């Protein structure tokens, strides 16, 4: 849909070209929409849309292909890094992007993400961590915080019973194949701006052929967390961000 722009006026904000105008299936207040928009902005600004083959996960973001105007391959649950490896190896000219949640990347797909990172695959991985299985009704995820109540940890996550949350991006960052690892957040405008810069750097690193790049984005799940959107953003800032601290975790491209 295009709107005629009056003479003398200029567009200062609009929908990125790569973001479709379809109504999305995310719950009110969900952070996935923000991350989708950032991806659309960054790929658009780098001119990567026509070269991109993206890999969709299993989970709430499986429909990413409906909201981003990119070629997409839908991976089995957790296997996006392996699927992306196959794409990357036969399409050296493509830009390859994976999008995974925390259940997909840090539980069922642990093996695939670790080995894609260890091989230094030229992939840009986006890892949205909201600490819960949203699509299946709010069960405990590998990144669920200690004490957090979920439908499968109704008395709160107990280390003695459920084990500890996994700091996946810090774990991946120790691998020499990982050129860049950063953690952003969707908590406020400043965090979102920083997250966009992390995503941009993670894309450039693939273009430079430097190695595997991952951006974790801590995000909110108001419905899964049993909160209003505003409360969930407060928890993201005041609780989650203290455990999963935003910032650049490693940048091996720095001299």
């Amino acid at each position: 849909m295009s709107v005629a722009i009056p003479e003398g006026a200029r567009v200062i904000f609009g929908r990125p070209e790569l973001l479709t105008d379809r109504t999305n299936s995310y719950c009110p207040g969900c952070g996935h929409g923000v991350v989708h928009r950032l991806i659309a902005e960054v790929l658009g600004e780098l001119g990567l849309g026509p070269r991109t083959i993206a890999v969709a996960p299993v989970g709430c973001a499986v429909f990413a292909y409906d909201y981003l105007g990119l070629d997409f391959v839908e991976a089995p649950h957790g296997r996006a890094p392996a699927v992306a490896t196959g794409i990357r190896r036969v399409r050296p000219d493509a830009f390859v992007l994976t999008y995974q949640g925390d259940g997909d990347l840090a539980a069922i797909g642990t093996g695939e993400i670790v080995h894609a990172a260890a091989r230094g695959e030229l992939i840009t991985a986006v890892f949205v961590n909201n600490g819960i299985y949203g699509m299946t009704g709010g069960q405990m995820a590998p990144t669920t915080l200690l004490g957090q109540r979920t439908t499968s940890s109704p008395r709160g996550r107990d280390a003695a019973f459920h084990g500890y949350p996994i700091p996946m991006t810090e774990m991946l960052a120790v691998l020499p194949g990982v050129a860049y690892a950063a953690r952003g957040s969707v908590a406020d405008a400043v965090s979102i701006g920083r997250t966009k810069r992390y995503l941009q750097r993670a894309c450039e690193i693939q273009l430079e052929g430097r190695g595997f790049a991952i951006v974790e984005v801590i995000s909110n799940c108001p419905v899964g967390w049993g909160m209003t959107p505003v409360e969930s953003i407060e928890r993201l800032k005041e609780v989650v961000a203290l455990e999963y601290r935003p910032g650049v975790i490693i940048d091996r491209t720095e001299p």
Partner: protein
Amino acid sequence: MTTRPAPAASDPRRPVAPGSPHRGRRVLMKGNEAMAEAAIRAGCDAYFGYPITPQAELLEWMARRMPEEGRPFVQAESELGAINMALGAAATGARVLVSSSSPGMSLMAEAMSYMAASELPVVVINVMRGGPGLGSIGPSQSDYFQATKGHGHGDYRVPVLAPASIGEAMALTADAFELAERYRTPVIILTDGILGQAMEPVELIFREPPRIDAPWATTGAAGRPPRVVRSLHLKSEDLEAHNRHLQAKYAAITDREVRHETEHLEDADLVIVAYGTAARVARTAIARARDAGLRAGLFRPVTLWPFPSSALRDLAARVAGVLVVELSAGQMVEDVRLALEGRVPVAFTGRTGGMVPSPGEVVAALRDLATTAAVPDGRPER
């Protein structure tokens, strides 16, 4: 006499380039290595694998040869990794090979279902070993059910090709790519530890099937609307429509691509139904049985799915009994019984765990069948 009732899926068979130094050259090759080289010469763009006995020589051949050809080879972190790499590569329209052995095939089951649903052409070689569980590393045919009826969840089928010699395995490797791309489906080549690891003299004839357009492949949405390779159809109506499409495709494959071969059936009273290595044993047993006065012949399915049911049913009118020989506790025998619908007695003999039936055991089973099937004095009235 050997007949091939159904036309080869690969017709016309493209000869190697005139003047090729390999034309007609005979060499001794391991099955695993011969299939690997046949895949390379068939234009395989990428190979993904994980070490497992008795298919490791295939992976090792690819590890050496694919980089020589400037093509991708990845030793994956698991069979899950390997088959999903294949899924990704195939989604871009590449010609892709994966190989494994029985326990690894169980791990690949998930992606088989996704690839069938997303209609991705990938050739998967299973060099079967004894099961269940970790089983043995000896030859086996105990993955017949898995290959023809199962692997993953959902309503889908996958063509299964069963070579009985290393030379045939090479030809079927090229055919498998062609079938996979023509019908947009995974294709399984079902072999076993003997065919994989034994050496046989083979003629070095290779074939590269022609490429066909892949207007569905994800290549980057430059100058066209985005494409999505997917298996999720959340609306029940949509998924049913997709399933109808898949079933129509399976019906077309069943109509056109069934293959089997027969030997010594002209005067046969008894017929052995066997595929792969078991057919090799059966061939020896048939020669011995004929020396002893038992007129036996061989019916060898080359496609296990689609199963040559109607050719087998036609045969029932001419013979007194059928013996199924397998390196399993009896799996294909169920399809034989379904095809024959009780028209003639069906007996079974097989060994498991990596053991191979001897020709003597098969001849003994033929004698038992001859007794119950009343051969040669009079065939049962039908």
